[in-house]
Each structure stands twice: as structure tokens, then as C-alpha cells.
């Protein structure tokens, strides 16, 4: 027997749950200027999140998927990207979407069940939220292929969960990215659960990062509750992709602190204790502690941030709630670029049937 190929997965963490560096942080990531924007974005996302759940509970929003506890990933990913990069998100990447310029109001609209919530005024080429798990991986590699074809220095970032790594589309995309050497980064938010299925029952693979080896490229595992680690891995991966070095898979290990969605009751299938333990690793706590240790953050900053987040979210809620629903014909008007003649009758019918007369 001859050994013909070897592989290894590395793990990256800079900040422990208490915010104490576990190793030297590269200078450009160690300073408050690098951390504060991420912290602010995490706080905004968490405020949005709490409000969204409150709205849902009071019948003012549809089913909602919270990102509580996972904000570090989105914040680091979103802020690491350049404006003309492309984000191809799942439904739990609020922080990354906000970083990209998707507005709070748009995401409220989206979760209220309104298509206009995906007509982003900001990032024009970012993909809308993908609900069918892992299907967006294929879009990501297609977009990356388009970018590569045109020789543009742009990178596509695809986001998905641990459950998504079991899907054929995920793998078919990894395989293409590897063989075509595409400028794409796959970010797997491994929050330990796919609804009620724990990570251990999702795959026998020791890490999800090693799925990359099946595609012939590197996978790395990072502490997903450590924004510095995520940012570091993303900076490397984006730089590699941008400079023609091909794809990377980043497995960000985190924990879903909330129910799967507001339609779920996680107490049916997981121990309260596990959740309590996970709360100790909250990314907000460690980030704040680290900023405090730099003397770059204090109670006043925190209070001001809370106020600002509250205000911004409240403004967005009001704008969202003031948005009247679309008329019935809207379901026809963006279906095709131009409505086919065969549908004009149905469009008229829909207007008529839905009028009071």
C-alpha cells in the first residue's frame, strides 16, 4: 500500500468565550477599528431579530427564522466582502445581508411574505434568500463562473447550514468549484441543528470542512462565534478566490440559540441544558469583552448603540407596516419580462375576482 494523498483540517480561533485571545491576532484584525463595525452589526441584527419575533408573536409578521447566536458569522462575512462581490444567502444570514446593504425594512417585508422584500435597493446582484436548502450553492458557482469568464476581480460567497451539506446540490457545486477553480467561498454555518436533527446524525464526517476534499480544495473550520476567526478565514478565502486561487469551504461552528423558526418548538427535541451551555459562547459577549479589554468600548457606547439599533429597527418596522400590500395583478407583472398574451385573460380575471364588486 502506498499513500498517495493526504489531507488535514485546521481549526481557527482567536477569541475564547470570555473574549481573551487564544493566540496572537494579526495586527490588522486586532484593533478596535476592525472589531467595532462587526460588533455594531451584530447588535443591530440581534435587535432586528428580537423585534421580528415580537412582531410574529403578535401576528404582524410571518414565520421567521432567528439568527440569535450566529450573528458573528454574518457580520464577519458581510464586512469582509467587497461591494461588488456577490452574496448568495440562505434564510439565516441577516447580518451578512445588512452588511451588504439590504435594508431592515426589506427584510421585514420579506418575512411578512411580500416579494418586494427581495427587490433589494442595495446590492443589485446579491441573490434573494433561498428557502430550498442548498439549491443556492448551484447559483453561487454559476455566478462565480460568470465572473471568471469575464475576468472580473469579484468573489461569490454562498451561505448555508450544516443540514445543507447533506444535499446533492451542495456537493455538485463543490465539485464544480474545485475542478473549474472558481472564485467562490462556501460558508457553512454549522449551528449543530437542522430543525430537530443534530449535527451528529446529519453526517458521519468528523468536520464539515472536510467535505471540501471531495471537491479537491481546502476546507477550514473556525469558531463561528469568534468574529475575528471568521473574519480571518474569510479574508484569506476571499483573497485566494480573488487572485485566482480557487474556492474555499469555511465551516463556522456556532449554535442556534432559538427555535428553528417561530413555527418550531425546539424544547421537543433538545435539552434546555445544552442551550444554556451554548449561551456561554455567545459571540456578542466575547466581542464586547475583547473591545473592553482594548479600552475601546464602555457602558456609554453600549447604551448609545442600543438606542441607535432600537431606533433604526423601529423606523424600519414603521415603514414596513405602512407599506400597503401589492394589488392582485402583481402576481402576473413580474412573472415574465413581458406578460404573454396567453395570460392577459387570467390577469384580468384575477383583478376582477379580487375586487369587491
Amino acid at each position, binding site marked *: 500500500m502506498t499513500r498517495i494523498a493526504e489531507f488535514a483540517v485546521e481549526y481557527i480561533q482567536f477569541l475564547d468565550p470570555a473574549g481573551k485571545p487564544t493566540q496572537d491576532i494579526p495586527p490588522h484584525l486586532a484593533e478596535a477599528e476592525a472589531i467595532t463595525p462587526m460588533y455594531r452589526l451584530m447588535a443591530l441584527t440581534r435587535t432586528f431579530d428580537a423585534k421580528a419575533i415580537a412582531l410574529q408573536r403578535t401576528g404582524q409578521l*410571518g414565520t421567521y427564522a432567528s439568527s440569535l447566536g450566529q450573528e458573528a458569522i454574518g457580520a464577519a462575512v458581510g464586512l469582509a466582502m467587497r461591494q461588488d462581490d456577490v452574496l448568495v444567502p440562505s434564510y439565516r444570514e441577516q447580518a451578512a445581508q445588512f452588511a451588504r446593504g439590504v435594508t431592515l425594512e426589506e427584510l421585514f417585508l420579506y418575512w411578512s411574505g411580500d416579494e418586494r422584500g427581495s427587490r433589494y435597493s442595495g446590492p443589485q446582484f446579491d441573490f434573494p434568500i433561498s428557502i430550498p436548502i442548498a439549491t443556492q450553492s448551484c447559483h453561487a458557482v454559476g455566478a462565480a463562473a460568470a465572473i471568471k469568464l469575464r475576468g472580473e476581480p469579484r468573489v461569490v460567497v454562498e451561505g448555508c447550514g450544516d443540514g445543507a451539506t*447533506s*444535499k446533492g446540490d451542495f456537493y455538485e457545486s463543490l465539485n464544480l468549484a474545485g475542478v473549474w477553480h472558481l472564485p467562490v467561498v462556501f460558508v457553512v454555518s454549522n449551528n449543530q441543528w437542522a430543525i*430537530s436533527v443534530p449535527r451528529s446524525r446529519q453526517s458521519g464526517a468528523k468536520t464539515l470542512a472536510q467535505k471540501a476534499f471531495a471537491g479537491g480544495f481546502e476546507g477550514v473550520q473556525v469558531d463561528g462565534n469568534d468574529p475575528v476567526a471568521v473574519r480571518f478565514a474569510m479574508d484569506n478565502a476571499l483573497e485566494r478566490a480573488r487572485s485566482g486561487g480557487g474556492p474555499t469551504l469555511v465551516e463556522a461552528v456556532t449554535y442556534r440559540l432559538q427555535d428553528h423558526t417561530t413555527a418550531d418548538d425546539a424544547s421537543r427535541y433538545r435539552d434546555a441544558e445544552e442551550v444554556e451551555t451554548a449561551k456561554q459562547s455567545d459571540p456578542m459577549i466575547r466581542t464586547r469583552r475583547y473591545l473592553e479589554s482594548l479600552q475601546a468600548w464602555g457602558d456609554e457606547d453600549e447604551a448609545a448603540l442600543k438606542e441607535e439599533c432600537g431606533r433604526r429597527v423601529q423606523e424600519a418596522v414603521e415603514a414596513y407596516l405602512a407599506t400597503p400590500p401589492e394589488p392582485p395583478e402583481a402576481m402576473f407583472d413580474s412573472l415574465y419580462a413581458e406578460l404573454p398574451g396567453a*395570460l392577459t385573460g387570467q390577469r384580468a380575471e384575477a383583478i376582477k375576482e379580487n375586487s369587491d364588486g
Partner: protein
Amino acid sequence: MAEVNLVEAVNMALARAMEEDDNVVVLGEDVGVNGGVFRATVGLLDRFGKERVMDTPLAESLIAGMSIGMAAMGLKPVAEIQFMGFIYPCVDQLVCHASRLRNRTRGRLGCPMVLRAPFGGGIHAPEHHSESTEAIFAHIPGLRVVIPSSPSRAYGLLLAAIRDPDPVIFLEPKRIYRLVRQEVPDDGTALPLDVCFTLREGTDLTLVTWGAMVHETLQAADALADQGISAEVIDVATVKPLDAESILISVEKTGRCVIVHEAARTAGMGAEIAARLCDEGLLSLMAPVKRVTGFDTVMPLPRSEHYYMPNVKRILKTCRELVDYA
């Protein structure tokens, strides 16, 4: 005897089938400790153990494909697809294998599997959670497509589907999962597949429907009765193979037919029923055959989905048109 709603009837049938045949196994996403996102499989894990109630990884093509493998080996897998909107990765395995295994091997291997999926709109769910694409499966030779519309039919049809030696797509109208409760004896009595159920007899007009729309259609029939119009209501239940015979006989009597379904109109199952009437029943038709259906658009997100859904008003209006037809 307890009263059960539709999803409880599904659960009861699953338990019954597992009880009476060790080969029956349940698999899917979140069907184990969570008991299914709609609680259709609740309690089964405790009762039958994790060997027979299997949470799978998140992979729908696999769920369909492994069910085929299990079925060929003599198990009777009952797989759940969490929502019909996620059933499309199964289409390949269903078209290429489940529907063909018996025919391909000239009977050497069978494929006694059931693929269950909640379907239909009107519950304000996120995108892809409100689909009705039964016609896609009804076009595939070798499959059965069964849709219950009440607790008792859910129980009887699901038992029949599980006992059937061939693959069955079992679509559960989730909007009415908890709408009504009925006394359903858990006596293991299956209902026949391949026949329509006449829910109400009438003489002036035949209303043909299935799934959740049965309820709006029955309401419409009530309203018509108030207007002195006697509507026969047929629940197709098994849309594939289609019992066109019963519909033809009814329309022979009434001369008028309205077909009601949630799915998009074009190439929906309503078209097949109309086509059969237009062929074998033409002479009995006293008015055009009309379809009250979803539009040929993507099902809108919750804020606008009511614009899309057929409702009692639309059904009634169409019925009146036919009754008033010259």
C-alpha cells in the same frame, strides 16, 4: 372512539400499519423525536423504535431513492417529504425508478413505497410551502397519486396506500389538517384506491374537486342548495389512476361540470378531467366545462396568497354561469 382531525388520522394509520406489518418503516426529515413538523409521525419513535422510525439527513433525492432500495428488498417504507415544495429533487427517482422497477424487471422486484407530503396553500407559510403540483405526478405512468380530504378518508386511503404493492404519492392538504374532527374507528379498514367519492348527490351540476378545496366546494354546494340548485360533489381522492367513469356518470346526469383545484390551471388535473368529458361525455354536456383554479402564476407569498386561492365566491360565480348558460 375518539374524534380525530386529519393529521391525527394520518398518524393513526401510520401506527396501525406499523403495528400490523413489521416491514412498514417511516423515514424522513424530523419524523423521529420531533414527530414531523406537522406532528404526523408523533409517538411513532417511542412506540416502534429508531430502527423503524428514521430521521434521515437533509436530502430528498436520497429519501426517495433509498425508499426504492428498501422497497425492493421487501420493506414498506413510508417516507415523508416535509413540504411538497421540497419534493422536486425526488422527481428523478420517482420517474426513473419507483414507477418503473416492477415493469423494468417484469415483476421480479416491486416498489411498495409511499411518499407522503403536506401540500397546498392558505396557511400563510413561507415560499415553497404552499405548492400543489399533483398533476406532475399524475402524468407519470406507474405511480398512484392519492389525496385525502377528511380524517376518515386520510385514515382509510393511507392504509390502502401503505398496503398497496406499488408506489403511491400521498399528498396531505395541510390547510385542513386540523379543520374538522371526525370519529374514525381505528379498525384497520382501508378505503379503495382508484375510485372517486361522491360526497353529495345532486342533479343540476357536478362539482369535481379534491384535497382542501373539497371544503370550499361543499360550502358552495350548500349555498347553491339555498338558491334551489342541486349540486353533486365528487372528491376525486385518487387523481392517478383517475376514475373518470364516476365523473362521466355524474355529468351524464347533471349535464354541467365545474372542476375546482388549487394548482395552476394549465396542464393541471382539471384539464384531464375536462378532456375526458369532452371526449367520452360530450353529448351529456349542456354547458362548457369550467375550471376554478389557481392562476398560472407562482403562488404569491403570504401577503397576497388569497388573491391566488380559489374560493367559495369564485366557485359560486362559475356555477351560476353554467346554470344560467343558454
